[in-house]
C-alpha cells in the first residue's frame, strides 16, 4: 500500500462527503426518507445516504489490486488476496471515514448554528434526526453514522476484490430486493388482483416490503444468478445454437405473440392508476421513437422537438374543440391526419433552411424554434386564436360508432363508443407506438436508413457519394415531426384541454434524455429509456421534485459508465466498444474455452 493510495482514498472520501452534504442540504435525503424500502428498517433516504460510502469504497480500491481478468479467479488468486484484502479494507475505510468526517462536520454545524436554516431551508431537525439515526445525543448519533460509513466503505472495498462469481450473485440479490422494495407500492397495486390478504401481508409492510420478503428475494436472485452463470447460460446458448432456422422462426413468432398478449392485457392487470402512467410513458415513447429517427438514425441534433408535439396538440385542439376557440369541430379521426400533416409540414418548412447547417448550429436553431412555438402559443398576440395562457378547452375525444343492432349489447344503447378512460387511450397510444416502431424499422433497414447512417458518419463524404443532403435530412426530420405531431394530438385529446405550459423546453430535453439513456438509435432503447426516465418519476413522487437533478446525475453517470445506453443499438455498441471488440477478434476463443470447460 502506498501513500498515494491513501491520498486518493482520502480525496474520494472528501468528495463523497461533499456529495452527501449536498444531497442532505437540498432536502433530498429527507424527502426520500418518507419511502421505506424495507419496512421500518431501510428507507430510500437512508439507502441514498449509504450508497455514498459504498460508491466511495468501491472507487477507492486501487486498480492494481483488482484482478480484472474474469477467467483467472481460481483458487490461487483468491488465497493470495488476503494482504490485498486488508489493503482494500483500509482504503475503503479511509474513504468512508473522510466522507463521514465531512458529514459529521455538517451535523455539528447544524446543531451548533440552528440559524443555518435561514439560508438552507431544507436543513431541518428531521434531517438531523435521519443523519443521527434518531439518537437522543447528536454526538452518539454522529459516531454511529461515522462507524456505519467506515464499515460500509471498507466492506465494499473488500467485496470488490472477490471473484466475479461471488460478486455478481450478491450484487444481483441486493439490486432485486432493493428494487422490488422501492417499487413495492406499484407491485402491491398489481398483485392485489391476484393474491389474498395473508399472502400480501407476508410480503408488504405498512410501507415497503418486509424484511422476510427482502431476504427471500435476495436469496432467489442470488441463487438464480449462480445457477445461470454456472450452467444455465451455456445450456441456453447451446440449445439456442442447436435450433434450426424453422424453430428459430417459430420461437420468434411465439415471442411476438406473447408480447402482443402482454401489451393488450396490460391495462387489465395494472389497474387504472398504472395504466394512466403507461399512457404518459407511451406518449413519450412515441415522441422518443420520432426523435430517434432524427437524432439516432440521421444524427441531427434537434433540441426543439417539443414544437412538433405542440403543433400536433394545438391542431387537434383547434379542429375538434367544442369550446369558443374550436374552428371546425370535426371528429377526432378526421382531425388526426391533419395534426400529423401540420407537424410534418412545420418540420419540412423549418427543415429546408435549417438543415444546411451542421451540428451545433442546427441544435441552436431548433432550440430557438421550440421556444418560439411555446412563446407564441402563450402570447397575447395569438390569444384570440390559441387561447393564450388559458389554453384551449373541450377538445374532442375519439369515438367509434357502433352499429345499431349491437348497441344494446355493447354500449347500453349509446350510439357510439367514446374513448375517455386511460385504458381506452392506452390502446390508441399503443397503436401509435407500434406504427412508429414499424416505420422506424422499415426505414432503418432500407436505402433511407443506410443513407442516414452514412450522413451521420461523414456528411461530406456522404454528399460526395451522391446522397442528396437536404432531402435525406428532410425525410428524417419530417418523420420525426410527424410522430411528434401524432403524440401531441393523442395527448391533447386524452387530457381534453391544453395549456402552453405543457409544451416547455423540458419536454424536448426529456425526450432527448430518454433516447440517450436508452441508447441512441436503438428502438427498444427508447422504450427502456421512457420507462426509466418518465415512468419511474411518475411512480415515485419524490423523484419528481428532483427530476432535473436526477436527469443530470444519471446522464453523467451513463456517459461515464455506459455511454452506449441501457439497450444499445448494434451500431453504437460497435462504435463505443470497438477496441474491446477488436481484442475479442484477436482472441475469440477465451470465452468459448471457458464455456466449453463448464
Amino acid at each position: 500500500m502506498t501513500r498515494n493510495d491513501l491520498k486518493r482514498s482520502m480525496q474520494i472520501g472528501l468528495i463523497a462527503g461533499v456529495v452527501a452534504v449536498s444531497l442532505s442540504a437540498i432536502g433530498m435525503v429527507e424527502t426520500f426518507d418518507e419511502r421505506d424500502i424495507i419496512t421500518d428498517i431501510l428507507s430510500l433516504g437512508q439507502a441514498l445516504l449509504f450508497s455514498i460510502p459504498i460508491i466511495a469504497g468501491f472507487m477507492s480500491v486501487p486498480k492494481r489490486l483488482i484482478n480484472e481478468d474474469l477467467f483467472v479467479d481460481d483458487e490461487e488468486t483468491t488465497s493470495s488476496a488476503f494482504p490485498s484484502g486488508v489493503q482494500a479494507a483500509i482504503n475503503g475505510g479511509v474513504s468512508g471515514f473522510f466522507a463521514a468526517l465531512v458529514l459529521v462536520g455538517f451535523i455539528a454545524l447544524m446543531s451548533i448554528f440552528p440559524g443555518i436554516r435561514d439560508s438552507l431551508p431544507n436543513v431541518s431537525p428531521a434531517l438531523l434526526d435521519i443523519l443521527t439515526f434518531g439518537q437522543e445525543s447528536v454526538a452518539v448519533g454522529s459516531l454511529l453514522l461515522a462507524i456505519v460509513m467506515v464499515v460500509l466503505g471498507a466492506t465494499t472495498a473488500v467485496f470488490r476484490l472477490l471473484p466475479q462469481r461471488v460478486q455478481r450473485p450478491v450484487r444481483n440479490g441486493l439490486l432485486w430486493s432493493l428494487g422490488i422494495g422501492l417499487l413495492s407500492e406499484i407491485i402491491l397495486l398489481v398483485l392485489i388482483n391476484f393474491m389474498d390478504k395473508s399472502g400480501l401481508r407476508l410480503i408488504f409492510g405498512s410501507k415497503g416490503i418486509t424484511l422476510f420478503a427482502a431476504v427471500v428475494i435476495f436469496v432467489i436472485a442470488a441463487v438464480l444468478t449462480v445457477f445461470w452463470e454456472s450452467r444455465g447460460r451455456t445450456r441456453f446458448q447451446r440449445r439456442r445454437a442447436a435450433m434450426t432456422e424453422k424453430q428459430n422462426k417459430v420461437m420468434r413468432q411465439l415471442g411476438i405473440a406473447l408480447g402482443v398478449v402482454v401489451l393488450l392485457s396490460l391495462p387489465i392487470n395494472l389497474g387504472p392508476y398504472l395504466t394512466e402512467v403507461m399512457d404518459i410513458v407511451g406518449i413519450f415513447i412515441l415522441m422518443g421513437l420520432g426523435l430517434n429517427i432524427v437524432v439516432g438514425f440521421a444524427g441531427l441534433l434537434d433540441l426543439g422537438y417539443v414544437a412538433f408535439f405542440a403543433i400536433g396538440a394545438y391542431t387537434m385542439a383547434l379542429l375538434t374543440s367544442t369550446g369558443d376557440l374550436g374552428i371546425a369541430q370535426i371528429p377526432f379521426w378526421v382531425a388526426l391526419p391533419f395534426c400529423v400533416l401540420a407537424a410534418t409540414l412545420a418540420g419540412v418548412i423549418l427543415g429546408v433552411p435549417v438543415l444546411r447547417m451542421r451540428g451545433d448550429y442546427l441544435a441552436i436553431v431548433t432550440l430557438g424554434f421550440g421556444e418560439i412555438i411555446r412563446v407564441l402559443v402563450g402570447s397575447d398576440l395569438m390569444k384570440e386564436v390559441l387561447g393564450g395562457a388559458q389554453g384551449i378547452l373541450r377538445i374532442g375525444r375519439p369515438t367509434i360508432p357502433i352499429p345499431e343492432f349491437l348497441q344494446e349489447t355493447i354500449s347500453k344503447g349509446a350510439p357510439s363508443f367514446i374513448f375517455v378512460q386511460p385504458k381506452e387511450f392506452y390502446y390508441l397510444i399503443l397503436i401509435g407506438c407500434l406504427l412508429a416502431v414499424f416505420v422506424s424499422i422499415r426505414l432503418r433497414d432500407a436505402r433511407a436508413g443506410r443513407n442516414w447512417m452514412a450522413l451521420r458518419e461523414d456528411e461530406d463524404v456522404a454528399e460526395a457519394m451522391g446522397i442528396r443532403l437536404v432531402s435525406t435530412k428532410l425525410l428524417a426530420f419530417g418523420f420525426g415531426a410527424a410522430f411528434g405531431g401524432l403524440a401531441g394530438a393523442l395527448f391533447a385529446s386524452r387530457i381534453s384541454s391544453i395549456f402552453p405550459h405543457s409544451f416547455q423546453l423540458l419536454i424536448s430535453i426529456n425526450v432527448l434524455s430518454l433516447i440517450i439513456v436508452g441508447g441512441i438509435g436503438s428502438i427498444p432503447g427508447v422504450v427502456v429509456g421512457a420507462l426509466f426516465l418518465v415512468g419511474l418519476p411518475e411512480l415515485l413522487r419524490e423523484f419528481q421534485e428532483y427530476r432535473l437533478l436526477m436527469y443530470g446525475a444519471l446522464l453523467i453517470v451513463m456517459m461515464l459508465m455506459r455511454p452506449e445506453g441501457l439497450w444499445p443499438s448494434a451500431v453504437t455498441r460497435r462504435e463505443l466498444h470497438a477496441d474491446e471488440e477488436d481484442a475479442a477478434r484477436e482472441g475469440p476463443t477465451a470465452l468459448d474455452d471457458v464455456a466449453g470447460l463448464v
Partner: protein
Amino acid sequence: MSNNLLEAINVTKRFGGLTAVDDLDFAIPTGSIVSIIGPNGAGKTTFFNCVTGFYDFDDGQILFAGRSLKGRSPDTITRMGISRTYQNIRLFSQMSAIENILVGMEPSLKSSWIGALFRTKKTITEEEEALVEANRLLEFVGLRGKGDIFARNLPYGDQRRLEIGRALGGRPQLLLLDEPTAGMNPSETAETTLFIRRLRDELDITVLLIEHDMRVVMGISEDITVLDYGKKIAQGTPVEIQNNPRVIEAYLGRGVTIAKNPV
C-alpha cells in the same frame, strides 16, 4: 476538344491571400490515365476538391463531358459521373464493407421511402439487384467474402481498395484517386498499379491520379501535369517530365542535377 472528358480552363481557387490553384489549364482525354504531381501544398488536392464540388473555384471553368461543373454540389457532380477517393481514407467506418459500397451506389438507386415502408416489389427487387452488384464490385476490388466486416476492421490495404470499390459504385466515367498507394509497401503498390490499369482497361473508366510514388506515376500515366504553388509548371509524357529541368528544380531545389535514368 471533344475527346477530352474533363477540361479545366483558367481555374483559380484562392483562400484569402493564398492562391492554391492559379490559372490552371488542364485536360483529361477520354479513356486515359492522367496524373497530377507536385510537392506538398502544390494545390493538387485543392484541384480535386474544385472538380468534385467540395470547393467552389473563384475563376475559370471546369467542363465535364462538355457540361460546366461551376457551382454544382458534390452530389450532383457525382451523379454526373465523377467519383473520388481520399488521401486519408474516409470510409464509413462503422458500416460494413458491403454497406459502404451500397452507399456508393446511391446515384443508381431510385426506390423511395414509400416503397421502403410498404416493401413494394420494386423496392425489394432494386435492393436485391443492388446487393448483387455490390458483391460483384467487392469481388472486383479483391475483397470477396469480406462484405460483412466493418470498414474500420479491415486491414489498411483493403480499406484503400474498398474506397475505390465504393467510388466505383457510382458508375463513374471519371475516377479521381488521391494518393491511392500512400502507406503501401512495394508489393501492394505494384498490385494497386496493375489494378488502376484494370479500371481503365476493363471498365473503361478515365482515371485522374494524384500520387507521390514516382514508380506508380511513371509506370501508368499517359500524361503528367506538374503543379507547384498552384501553377502548372510542366506537362507531358513521363519521359518528358523526368527530364524537365523545372520539375527537377521544384522537387529538389535549384542547382541540383540528377542522372538521366528513366524508371
